[in-house]
């Protein structure tokens, strides 16, 4: 059965001290295997929130998130973690590498957690990402672009059917960002993963199969 992700009628309100912040007000979207989708929107429009909900890191107030036939919303904490481990590769804006592990350790971490470590693929990945010579270094000894490449590698190492990326090149200069993204698209293409990527840049959004815009809590195509 081909992979498919369906988000339907998602609502999310944050309670704050003054008044509740309604961030998502009935968001729906879908993503098929191998497809890539750009998510744009103003700062504070709720892009990260949506991504976190899809990844099961937070709870929506209402709505469903079907990932490979499982509804993330109904699952318990442990099952959500398992679904994330097996099916989702997360690329954070701020890399979120494990500081005490080397590049090699970080790269293979999720794949080993999911029990899907493939040494050949790992070696290939490291070479393609240009990390071969950095394998023994620690994250704090890397530049921003290098760290971002490690984060991408970690998300792809277990060949998850779905990759969620939150402004993966937000910290990089344009040239480096382009190079890193090209790499990401190539790898996604090869592993036939679906990609949902948050970006501010129209130029980058144009390189993906499709794009949606989030504003005032709604998606407009």
């Amino acid at each position, binding site marked *: 059965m081909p992979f498919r992700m369906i988000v339907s009628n998602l609502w999310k309100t944050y309670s704050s001290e003054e008044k509740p912040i309604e961030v998502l007000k009935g968001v729906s979207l879908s993503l098929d295997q191998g497809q890539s989708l750009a998510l744009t929107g103003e700062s504070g429009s709720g892009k990260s929130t949506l991504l976190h909900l899809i990844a099961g890191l937070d709870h929506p107030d209402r709505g469903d998130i079907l990932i490979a036939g499982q509804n993330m919303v109904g699952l318990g*904490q442990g099952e959500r973690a398992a679904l994330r481990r*097996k099916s989702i590769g997360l690329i954070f804006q701020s890399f979120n590498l*494990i500081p005490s592990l080397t590049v090699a*350790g970080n790269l293979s971490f999720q794949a080993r957690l999911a029990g899907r470590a493939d040494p050949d693929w790992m070696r290939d990945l490291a070479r393609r990402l240009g990390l071969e010579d950095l394998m023994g270094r620690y994250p704090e000894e890397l530049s921003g672009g290098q760290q971002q490449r490690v984060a991408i590698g970690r998300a792809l190492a277990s060949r998850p059917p779905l990759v969620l990326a939150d402004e993966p090149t937000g910290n990089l200069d344009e040239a480096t960002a382009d190079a890193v993204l090209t790499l990401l698209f190539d790898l996604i293409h090869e592993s036939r993963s679906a990609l949902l990527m948050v970006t501010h840049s129209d130029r980058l959004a144009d390189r993906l199969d499709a794009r949606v815009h989030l504003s005032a809590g709604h998606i407009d195509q």
Partner: protein
Amino acid sequence: MILASLGAILSHWRRHPVQLVLLVLGLSIATALWTGVQAINAEARRSYDEAASALGADLGVIVRSDGGPLTTEDFVNVRRAGWLASPMVEADFSIGPIDVRLVGVELLTLPRGATTLDLDDAEDPGAFFQPPGQFWVNERLAAQLERQETPPLRISDEVPANTVITDIGIAQSLLGASDISRLVLSGTQPANRTPLRDFAPHLEERAATDSADVSRLTDSFHLNLTAFGLLSFVVGLFIVYASINLAFEQRRATFRTIRAVGLSARMLSLILLAELALIAVLSGMVGVILGYVIASALLPGVAATLRGLYGAAVTGELGLDPSWWAAGFGISIFGALAAGSQALYRMLRLPVLSGAHTAAWFRSFTRDLRLQTVAAVALLASAVALYWTGTGLLAGFALLGALLLGCALLLPLPLSLATLAGQKLARSPLAEWFWADTRMQLPQLSIALMALMLALATNIGVGTMVSSFRETFTGFLDQRLAAELYVDAGSNERAEAMQSDLEGRVDAVLPLWRVQARLFGEPGDIVSAADHATFRDHWPIIEGAPRVWDLVASGSAVLVNEQLARRHDLELGQTIDLPGGWRPEIAGVYSDYGNTAGQVLAGLEAMRERYPSADHSSFGLRVAEDRVGALRDEIMAQYDLPGSAIVDQASLKQLAQQAFERTFIVTGALNVLTLAVAGFALFASLASQSSMRAPQRLRSGRLGFAARR
């Protein structure tokens, strides 16, 4: 999955080895001090039990009411009256240069269960009591006696330290007297036996021998040690708490990432628990070894102290008991869990999505602070409650503990308020940052400060206690050891002869009569006071009726020591029941340092009258100070006394002071160790603090402040 996550979590320590060392060291020091003290206590208790079981202390005995020895005739009468009793003699005895406790028993009548020794020798049943007899000793004493001339030695581990067990006839001939110390009673006695008062009113039956009371006497000493061990453990826990929290704090982002990547919170907690257990076992191992080293270093001192203060025999050697290993690991794991439970709990509730890092933690600190203050107030309240209602040593310790811990827990509150005030009053942005930053560091810092405060308080407390003890003790010695020379004549007759001989050659002769007696059912003694200025001027009376010495001299009243007075709420004018139906009034209370037993001081004439057979083989002599040396030599030569039998005041004081100092060797050592642990805690938390602050300094540096500030 588990291996990969455990690897990621443990990799933190590879990157922060110093932190790991601090944590393991903290936990192992805490464990070490605790197990060390436990080991010492266990060893001492084992010695007491051994002494009790090997000498039949569990069984009832018949003794003379006035504490004097029994005669063979007494024994025969008791047997005739239908009692199942066996004679026993027990005395100090020297074999060459070695002082031992000589215990003589009669094998034929010895009740079952009186001793755990298997004294019957199947091959040669007569060997025990037929001359030359046998000496039953433990291995250690056997090695010491190797070169001495003794009957054949039989070695058994069950014989208490420094004790020789032999046949009563052999013991009596060695001691040169046919005295019997006591009659040991069989567990079951014939119902138709004649009551003692009908045929031998001077004898009385007692539940158990005095030797069983040794553990009671030494209880306070062991409680002291335990309290110290516990305190060190608590101080150690503060370090452990600080390091564990720090390690969790530093890995907060890692935990988030690991969970975002797909590990459930429950699994992560289990892995962290495993990590804690691993560290605890490692520290437990180091701790038990350290504890053993500490215990074996301190034990000889403790043994010497116990022997000196209470006459309790404790072997100066430490056995290796597997139960300590278990206890050491247990306390280490308990400590790690106790110190880590809060961090673990927070981890479980940590949302995967990050909020502001320090800010979130600080909010939880404010919540904890409230809880902590409540706990502190509760502790202080229970201290007050204990002060009003509690009695006894244990309650005293609990009170002190609650007070100390309560104050320590209260400490962060004023610190927090002070920094808050600083922040509010700050004018410049830099000052504001300084106060805000200091406030943020409080959670970490206050833990170390609490540990330090606890240790300092104990140190000052113990220091003052010891020095005031020393002062009291020296004063006490000056008062109690007023006579310039003390002579042990060896027997009453000899003492009497010597005294009348010496009369006129010295300023005064002070006979010392002594009777062991039950005072309020507990072992104690009655000693005599001659009607002489020595007593009137020097005796340390705390509370006394007018003309107290006249009352004592007349025989109508006695003095009691402070211990007895406090234990039984005795008041002046009250009467006290003494053996032989004597009921004198209490005319005063005197201080009697280091004696846990009750004591009564009675007038010399009254003692002579009431207890004519009491021991009075030693006496004191008053002479001018410059004559002491010469007189000592003179007496030694004239009466052919060994040097040990005639002691001058100065060397007696020195001996006593040595014993005193030895008591507090242990305290001093533990004091230093506790302070070291606390200093270590402060260092640990400052060291990790600076590593956590580095990025922040960088940040404020970027904002335009020079990093040097």
